């Protein structure tokens, strides 16, 4: 589904990603872990198409298309979803209108007519229940005045609404208490099918107790320096990143 080859990216002339290689197949859950400043969030941003980062090399193929040639909205319509680490507040734009515009665009891309208003509201209600979002959304502006937990739940709710092929969760666990974390993880797990894939970006292994990955990658200094199974996360929790850092520093 997603194939990243030797991806390099910089910001303001500073190279952040120094050659990333990653293969994600349908049905897989990947975790990308790593110490602060290793390039985890940059990777998520580059995949979503944030233009402050300049891609200086490599290829990204998504479902047979050159992802790097697409703008952010096209990537979304092709099936990529980024759950933001810091969801943006948009005063004055109601969640209903926001989601309506997004769902309509996605449907248009698939050659479908826009949903009727009543149908859309029912769809929204259904997805809200699925991700256990109990907050009243009607009449509220996107993320405005939301608590940290509400914002993250709202990201998962949007993911449920848009049903992406590939969801990238950028530090979705940061700032969450254990209850909110469970709700968020539950939502992500419910949305999982054999046809879609998830990349979970996280600093701590705590989230991985709830969203169980198939493959774990350790990102350090702009490169994936180690890939392994679930046990890798437990090792990291026990011993920290120091060993891996030392090894990697020797290599590069």
């Amino acid at each position, binding site marked *: 589904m997603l194939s990243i080859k030797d991806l390099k990216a910089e910001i303001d002339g500073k190279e952040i990603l120094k050659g990333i290689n990653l293969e994600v197949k349908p049905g897989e859950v990947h975790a990308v872990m790593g110490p602060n400043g290793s390039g985890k969030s940059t990777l998520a941003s580059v995949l979503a198409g944030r233009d402050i980062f300049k891609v200086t090399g490599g290829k990204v193929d998504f479902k047979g298309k050159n992802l790097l040639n697409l703008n952010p*909205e096209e990537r979304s319509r092709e099936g990529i979803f980024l759950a933001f680490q810091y969801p*943006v507040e948009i005063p004055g734009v109601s969640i209903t209108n926001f989601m309506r515009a997004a769902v309509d665009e996605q449907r248009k891309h698939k050659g479908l007519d826009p949903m009727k208003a009543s149908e859309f509201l029912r769809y929204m209600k259904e997805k809200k229940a699925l991700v256990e979002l109990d907050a009243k959304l009607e009449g509220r502006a996107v993320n405005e005045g939301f608590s940290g937990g509400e914002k993250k739940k709202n990201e998962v709710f949007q993911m449920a609404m848009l049903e992406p092929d590939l969801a990238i969760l950028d530090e979705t666990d940061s700032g969450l208490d254990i209850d909110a974390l469970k709700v968020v993880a539950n939502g992500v797990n419910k949305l999982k099918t054999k046809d879609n894939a998830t990349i979970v970006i996280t600093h701590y292994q705590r989230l991985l107790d709830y969203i169980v990955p198939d493959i774990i990658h350790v990102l350090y200094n702009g490169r994936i320096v180690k890939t392994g199974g679930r046990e890798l996360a437990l090792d990291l929790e026990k011993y920290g990143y120091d060993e891996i850092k030392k090894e990697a520093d020797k290599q590069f």
Partner: protein
Amino acid sequence: MTQTNVKEKKFADLYFGQEKFLFPENIRANSVKLFLETDIPNNKTENWRKFNSKPIFDHNYKLGKKLNFDMSVFDTLSFFEPESNRIVLTNGYYDESASEKKTEDIFIGSLKNAEKKHKEIIKQHLKTKKNKNPDYFSVLNDAFVKDGAFIYVPDNVKLEHPIYIMHFIQSDNGNIFAQNRNLIIAGKNASFKVIHTFHSLSSDFSFNNTVTDIFLDDDAQTEYYLFEGEGNTAAHVSNVNISSKKGSSFKSNVITFCGSVVRNNFHAEFFGEHAEIDLKGVYMPDKEQQVNNFIDISHSEPNCKSNQLFKGLIDNKAVSVFTGKVFVARDAQKTDSAQSNQNLLLTDYARAHSRPQLEIYADDVACAHGSTTGQLDKEALFYMKTRGISEKKAKTMLMNAFLKDVTAHISEGSYRDYVNFLINNRLKGQHPESLCNVKVCPSC
């Protein structure tokens, strides 16, 4: 007096014609004198800084005639509710056949005609501006105005439907100069809404110089909606003077949609405690339009509240100027005043000048002011795009959200829908000129 006596020769026509002027000759003579002594506002006139009056004085004008009004125009103005009271003026003249009074308890009509019937109340409220804010355009209005709208809602009368004052400019040939003086009086505990609109039915250049005096007696509640929808070949100066007595509430919302150069002056003063004045506005100039909002609120009494919220979307090479003056007298303790001016510049050439001016002599007051000028939030745009929303749609949604702070406060549904309809079409890229043209049905 000869034509050459009139300054700049622009308003020469004013001296001729058979109609009577609004003010009696003995009073008017002073105004004419004062007018001839008053300088045209320029960039050095403090209250008119950044105002470019050149588009006004670039043209020669003649006075518009009293024309037969085509009633089918109402069909093109979707906010218009036929069951409401209305005063129609064309080229500054009261149009009796197009105007209609639906409510028994109130007095509406021509100000000139009202002089006989409501002698006392007119004498009390209709004054020249020689002592107060004698700026060029107010004095011009004093000197040569002939008529305007009169609204008197007596004590305790509460109206469900709005009262319309609708001004139409219609040229048969040449550039039109129109003036009017409007007087709105709210009796004690009266409650009503006024929708005051300006439209152009022809494409010649026009200049409309309007003075509207609004008086609120104790506990009166008035909502005042001003809509500037004359075409982009129109210049418009509007002077709104508000006097608020004890416990009254005045809320206004001014939408500046069209006009080559538009100046909205609001002078508000409190004459009693626990009164509230709320002034809001939206402007969205395009091309080389110039929109100038000037607010001057005088807190001369304690325990009063004032609020200003003006938001602008400035496109192309357009210029906006916002000046918000708040004066708090030494005895006006517990004054609560807030002011906010926010501008979005849509191009690199668009300009916004924001000038908050607070003069506070009392020590126990809350006076807030804020001003921001910037571009659309890039983070929000990116966030929306990652959900599949196109850049164009995302921008439209953000601009709509930006203006909603103001337009959502319009309590009159049909008028709010009309304003939102125009804004939506404008944001979709339609030029205000075509939207303001009332001859073309906007919803067809």
